[in-house]
């Protein structure tokens, strides 16, 4: 055996020099994780402040802080005492135009952007690990196409019959469409042995839904087509506190659940065969994964429309910054990072050409696509060296 210790391979030592010191890399990555989390949190706070601060009506930063503080104070007090502080709370929230803008427009909007952005990032990350495919995103399983199909059918065929459509109806329609497609993919996930086949199934189902949507559009009037196009561009405008509550109720448990399955998820990085051999119940895990990531992206699609590229770009950015793909690190970091990304993009979307608002998807794509290209090329080069 002593002789054998010398017969080690030296062909790759140029990239990873050192031996003993390298062994405790676990500690290093944990330290890095804390640093990155602190950095992203700071960015999130900054982006939230900027977001409430900037807009067509300028609100001074001091006022924002004071109003927010009072709002939180009275809100909490109201909650604890069961409504005894309702008057004070009302005074803070509706006291002035500025506070109305702050509390009923900007704050719910940015909070919604933060929560949904985080949810998208986590949803995308789950699918990337699951499919071991770096460009798998939340909508790769055809969820946005399914949502658009049902929204389209609702707008075009049902709108005439049930009169005026409330935004709530569209949210339900989008959610229904997402879950419909999820169910189809789930059925296939039990039949198909190969993961990449499942990816193909998702993409094909997406095309099928697009075909149905296009078919509906053929018979639609211009007004409905415009509505559908607007919906499919995605936006956070019109966000209210109910939206924020709904998003939080779905996304927070979803992200926590994702964090709890970090261990089997890490095993999936070695492929389904190895995961199974280490004790992962592959079939039920598939169902769990698809349900979880679909639920997150369905929630986003329903509340803000399909938002492209966040789900693909943010997990990449996060992993590169963390220099690790450990799910227990990447999931919380992606969630925060997705929030920051979306809040910034939304800020740009509503201020860049103000008063005209850009679709959020426009901004996320412009920033997301180059990032993904750059990172893929850079990483490939790193691996080939």
């Amino acid at each position, binding site marked *: 055996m002593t002789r054998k210790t010398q017969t080690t391979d030296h062909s790759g030592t140029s990239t990873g020099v050192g031996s003993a010191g390298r062994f405790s890399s676990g500690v290093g990555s944990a330290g890095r994780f804390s640093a990155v989390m602190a950095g992203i949190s700071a960015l999130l706070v900054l982006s939230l402040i900027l977001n409430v601060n900037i807009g067509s009506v300028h609100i001074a930063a001091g006022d924002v802080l004071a109003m927010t503080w009072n709002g939180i104070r009275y809100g909490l007090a109201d909650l604890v005492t069961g409504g005894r502080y309702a008057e004070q709370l009302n005074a803070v929230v509706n006291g002035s135009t500025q506070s109305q803008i702050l509390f009923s427009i900007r704050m719910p909007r940015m909070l919604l952007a933060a929560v949904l952005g985080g949810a998208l990032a986590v949803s995308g990350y789950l699918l990337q690990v699951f499919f071991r495919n770096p460009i798998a995103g939340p909508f790769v399983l055809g969820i946005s196409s399914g949502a658009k199909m049902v929204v389209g059918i609702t707008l075009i065929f049902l709108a005439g019959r049930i009169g005026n459509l409330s935004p709530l109806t569209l949210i339900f329609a989008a959610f229904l469409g997402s879950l419909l497609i999820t169910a189809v993919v789930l059925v296939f996930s039990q039949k198909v042995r190969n993961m990449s086949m499942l990816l193909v199934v998702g993409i094909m189902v997406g095309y099928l839904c697009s075909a149905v949507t296009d078919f509906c559009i053929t018979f639609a009037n211009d007004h409905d087509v415009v509505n559908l196009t607007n919906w499919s561009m995605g936006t956070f405008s019109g966000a209210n506190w109910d939206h924020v509550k709904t998003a939080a109720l779905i996304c927070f448990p979803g992200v926590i659940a994702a964090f709890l399955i970090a261990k089997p998820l890490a*095993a999936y990085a070695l492929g389904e065969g190895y995961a199974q*051999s280490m004790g992962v119940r592959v079939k039920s895990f598939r169902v769990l994964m698809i349900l979880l990531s679909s639920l997150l992206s369905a929630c986003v699609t329903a509340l803000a429309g399909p938002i492209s590229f966040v789900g693909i770009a943010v997990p990449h950015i996060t992993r590169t910054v963390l220099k690790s793909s450990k799910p227990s690190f990447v999931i919380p970091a992606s969630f925060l990072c997705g929030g920051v990304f979306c809040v910034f993009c939304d800020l740009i979307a509503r201020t860049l050409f103000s008063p005209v608002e850009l679709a959020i998807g426009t901004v996320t794509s412009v920033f997301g696509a180059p990032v993904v290209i750059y990172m893929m090329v850079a990483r490939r080069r790193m691996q080939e060296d």
Partner: protein
Amino acid sequence: MNHYFETSGLSVGYNGKTLIRDICVGIEKGKILTLIGPNGAGKSTILKSVTKQLALIHGTVSIASKDISEWSPKEMARQVAVVLTDRIRPELMTSEEVVAMGRYPYTNMFGKLTPKDTEAVRDALARVHATELAGQDFGTLSDGQRQRVLLARAICQEPGVLVLDEPTAYLDIRHKVELLDILRDLAQNRGTTIILSLHEIDLAMKISDYLMCVKGDTIAAFGTPEEVLGGGGIAVFRPAGRAAESSGPAGCAAASSGPAGCAAESFGPAGVGNMIVAPGAPFETPDRNAIERLYDMESGSCNLLFGSIELAKPLGRPRAFVVAGCGYGIACYRLLQKKNIPFATGILFPNDVDYQVAAALSDHVVCTPPFEEMSQAQFDDAAQILLACDFVVDAGTPVGTLNKYNGKLLGLARERGIAVYSGSELRKGL
């Protein structure tokens, strides 16, 4: 019944369709079982079935006298670890992190590594001589390094049974040998029972305690390498009759000349036509063409003695006669094979290394009993073939008392005006 790993009445296949049936094998703890057989024979199917990646169609697999179908995934993971053929590309994972995944069945629900787990990871890396790869990104490793790291991952899962599907694929010769050395060490020093599939028959014979030949819809053979492949032993002289086995040293039998029924095909590998054998030389024949049969080789051959592979032999009337011996002939034989010139050779002793290659490549091998002087009879046979050839090759073998007839053969060729080339002249071209 002290079989640690055992299958009984096992049928395996995909989607309920049986591919291979009636697999009944058992091996003891700490032994190595190797599956050999042609591509697509179902080696991987068997391996996937015994690791529960595929549902069994029929029968049972038991480890340590327990039916594996009754185990939970976690128990199964603690008993059986695998090295698969899947090419994995985990991103941003160090080798150490890949190896640490092997602790999966032992860690808590967050996958937290205890000091004991870290120790197991370190130990596994040391066992595969990959300690210095610990901090390196898995994606930057060479194939040989990757395979060692994946083996370390399986080792630190602390399995009773380790299953490896073609672990030596993509590896160069040095890494193949190193990997198999590690497996041997695991089996002997850790008592790990190892089941693997290999394409290298020669290595399979050397590492395995048991061989399983997979062919068709059943197991063609199962047993020790000696039982399955006849040990690859050299043709040995034995007294003509079994009854006479105890009578004196083996060599004696050859002396008792007489036209004994020594069928040519019972002598060398199949396909060696027109073998001219000394009369009265009964050979015991190990099953030397088991490999050719297992793999349905229609041309070429595999020498089990050395594990060397020869390409298809040139067919037709011999155009050249190689006077060889003492290993000098091998290069000439292979050269003629490359030029696709059918040839005959002689006079050889069967214990000459030249004989092993000649038997695979030559149309006619004139040979003579070992440890005896060549006789006039063999010279006459050889001369007859030589005179019908276009040219003669002098391999350069020194001529001594025992092979003096070879010198006479060269003399005869010159005398009759047949061109005699040396090995180097042959190489330069005729």
